[in-house]
């Protein structure tokens, strides 16, 4: 039941926040925090009562048996880390929007719902349930962009939803095929994995799954929604997009292809590697040419998530582990950068790199925070990002030297865009917009949390590695078994 609570608590938190907000607008945020915190407690309970073996905990409840669907939730280290991340980012965004005045109850409710839906994705092992949460997740994010966004938010919101919902159709179609393929209609991922699917079908089904995951990831050429969505989204929206939504794509790729379609993965992984390699360089190069700070960071996300794709498609222990670590590290560093850029935007109402500058003189705390997360983006050793990149490169050396060198090149290019972002904002003299107010304590809190996360997992990553190990191992074993 704790697993169901992990999904329900944030969901109910959103509803109650909305109700409480009707009576007293300030009550909404407290309700949201309380419910999210209860989610954290439930997660802690899960950890305490973890069972030995591959899965820490598993729940099966009937849902719509006639349709072959049941509620199957399971948690292992990977899911645990992801759920923890989502709850943490949920709390962080609520705190960050603590003093929001514009439809604050709805905002806090939407944040809670995003967390609830992505928790669902991280825990669901009934394929229909997965597809359900997969699509559900889009709705609150869509609202976040459409209601609280900047600029041409409607177009960005529609673009976001269209890309992802269409990709989700691929997932849906594949899921139904799987459901109908067995002796009885069943969407139980474990059962399907046990039964095994015909190898040719696996390729097509994997294509359906991968479409959904890769658009969400996003991997070029499916990334065009991301820069717009990130740019127009409010700060909290950008944080959840970068920290959570992209991770659901990575999680999906990490988990399901090897679980359900090992043979298909064996066939398609080389193409995934090509796509990832292309995306890594492409994202980095495009990032170098951006003038909007948020867009720049968005393209760096494209580059980094493409590295994750490479890591996953590499299919060796190192690369998978590296991909898992980048998932966490990128959640911290990209969120923090969006937070900082958002804070700059709040003060001077521009994100144009040509107009910004001189933060180092007027707002040293800002500058220091920028410096830290800028180095995290460059995969500076000591940050979790480095660990992930290094592991992926190691894995790539085992797979194909070409990909390893491409990743190394992207490390060099990362300096080009990283310094561009950093020095245009922090150095020089402000051309138009002078930031005069340094980070407030309410902003500083989340920044410090993210900084600690980045550095802690960079220096002491054993917790992450131990957590990811079972998932990585079973992925590697599945691939090994699938190799003819």
């Amino acid at each position, binding site marked *: 039941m704790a697993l169901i609570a992990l999904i329900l608590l944030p969901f109910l938190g959103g509803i109650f926040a909305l109700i409480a907000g009707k009576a007293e607008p300030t009550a909404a945020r407290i309700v949201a925090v309380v419910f999210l915190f209860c989610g954290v407690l439930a997660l802690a309970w899960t950890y305490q009562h973890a069972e030995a073996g591959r899965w820490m905990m598993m729940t099966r409840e009937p*849902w*719509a*048996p*006639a*349709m072959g669907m049941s509620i199957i939730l399971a948690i292992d280290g990977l899911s645990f880390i992801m759920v923890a991340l989502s709850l943490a980012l949920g709390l962080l965004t609520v705190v960050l929007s603590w003093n929001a005045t514009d*439809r604050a109850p709805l905002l806090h409710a939407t944040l809670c719902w995003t967390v609830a839906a992505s928790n669902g994705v991280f825990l669901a092992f009934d394929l*229909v349930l997965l*597809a*359900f*949460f997969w*699509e*559900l997740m*889009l*709705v609150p994010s*869509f*609202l976040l962009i*459409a*209601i609280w966004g900047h600029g041409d938010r*409607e177009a960005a*919101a*529609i673009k976001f*939803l*269209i890309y992802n*919902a*269409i990709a989700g*159709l*691929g997932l*849906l*179609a594949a899921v*139904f*095929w799987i*459901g*109908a393929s067995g002796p009885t209609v069943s969407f139980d991922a474990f059962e399907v994995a046990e039964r095994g699917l015909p190898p040719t079908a696996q390729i097509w089904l994997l294509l359906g799954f991968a479409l959904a995951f890769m658009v969400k990831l996003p991997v070029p050429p499916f990334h065009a929604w991301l820069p717009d969505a990130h740019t127009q989204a409010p700060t909290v929206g950008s944080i959840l997009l970068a920290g959570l939504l992209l991770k659901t794509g990575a999680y999906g790729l990490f988990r399901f292809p090897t679980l359900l379609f090992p043979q298909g993965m064996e066939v398609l992984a080389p193409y995934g590697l090509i796509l990832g390699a292309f995306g890594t360089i492409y994202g980095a190069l495009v990032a170098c040419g951006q003038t909007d700070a948020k867009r720049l960071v968005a393209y760096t996300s494209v580059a980094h998530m493409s590295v994750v794709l490479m890591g996953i498609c590499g299919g060796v222990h190192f690369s998978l582990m590296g991909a898992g670590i980048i998932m966490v590290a990128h959640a911290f560093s990209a969120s923090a950068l969006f937070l900082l850029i958002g804070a700059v935007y709040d003060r001077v109402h521009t994100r144009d790199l040509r107009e910004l500058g001189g933060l180092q003189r007027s707002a040293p705390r800002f500058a220091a925070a920028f410096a830290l997360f800028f180095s995290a983006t460059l995969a500076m050793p000591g940050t979790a990002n480095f660990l992930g990149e290094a592991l992926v490169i190691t894995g790539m050396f085992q797979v194909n030297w070409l990909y390893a060198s491409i990743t190394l090149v992207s490390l060099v290019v990362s300096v080009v865009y990283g310094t561009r972002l950093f020095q245009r904002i922090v150095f020089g003299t402000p051309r138009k917009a002078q930031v005069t107010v340094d980070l407030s304590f309410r902003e500083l809190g989340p920044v410090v949390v993210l900084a600690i996360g980045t550095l802690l997992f960079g220096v002491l990553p054993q917790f992450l590695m131990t957590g990811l190990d079972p998932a990585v191992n079973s992925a590697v074993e599945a691939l090994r078994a699938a190799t003819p």
Partner: protein
Amino acid sequence: MATMGLEPLAVLGLAAVIAMAISPRASDGTTRSIAALGLIAALILAAGSQGALTSALLTGDAAARFGTGLCCLSGLAALAILRPASAPREAPALILLATLGASVLSGAAHAATLFVGLELVTLALIALTVLPRSAPALEAGYKLLILGGIGAATLLMGLAFAFAATGELTFAAWSSTDRLVALGAALLLAGLAFKFSLVPFHMWTPDIFSGAPAAAAIVAGVASKVGVAIVLLRLQPQMPATGIWQTGLAALGIASVVLGNLQALRQPSLPRMLGFSSIAHSGYLALILASGAADTAQAVLFYIATYAPALFAALAAAAILDRDANLTGLRGLVWAQPLTGAVLTLALLSLAGLPLAVGFWAKFQLFSALAQAGTYGLLAVAILGSAAGLYFYLRFTVTLFRRDGVDFPRPPHWQEAAVLLAAAATIVGLGVYPGPLYALVTASLP
């Protein structure tokens, strides 16, 4: 008590006669109350009756009861959103008649009942359409009359062909492989496609949605569609497997999905967009029917049942907004009228097939039926159609949340609010827990 399965029809007919009889004298409220009572009574009877009437003309099986129930619900919804100010007193009686016609259709097993039911719906619908007596309403009514006449003639021609070839007026006639029957089947399909608003027989649909009162659109969009869908389901097993039926349905379905979605793409008026989208949804149903999947019937009934509440809610919102129900007029609706706005959002998300709204499960049924049947071409069309559909539903959804809102003339009437709330509850309730509906549908196969 041994019931015959005819009670709902009898109650509906009786209520229609009473409502018509008292309408010149009695107040609007009384007429409506009587109509509502009649509908509710028919609904209860349909839900409660057990007997299976088997006559040559009508069947009273579970599917017929399911169809009657859904028709009664749509009748109630139509009744609730009739604008009190402008609705003439005959409207409740006409709604009852249309409901009756649709209910007869859902029980039809014979050329005569098929024809009578169809015409009852059409004529009542025409009358309902022209009731506001405004220029667009008259125009829509006239076009429906002319096109409906052609449609009826075509259908009758088909029935006559089959009768001529086999001497059989029941649906069993269609199992013949005679060429005349095949031609008749083509004509029948054309006639039914007209009522089912499949491309290219769809032209009247958007007019009804935008020109006529929203109540008429509900009747056209749900009640008559339920009836025709059940007729199609009943005809399906009779038809030769490789005949015109499957191929024609597939062709019409593909055309409807493609054209309906494309024409809705940038449509600025909400009801008109709903009209085009209803064409697309009919197309999805036709695709399911054409696929010949094992559980076609479940999928079709489930799909219609999930489509109904979303359409009720959307049309109720359109009725509340009246002439302003277009992209500019809908700006900021969520902030100005939270109930209407939120429910309309839900309805649009449901139509788009996003989860937590029941529409997700409709999409689920559609895809799984097509996937099960192994008709991947049709599946691809359905996926592409859904993808395009996302765009225009979301365009409206986004508009609802815009900040630069406009003023809205009136808050929803309590009846409209009731429709909205009931639809929202259904959409979300079934969206989270679709099991009961699926069980109901499984128990209601023809």
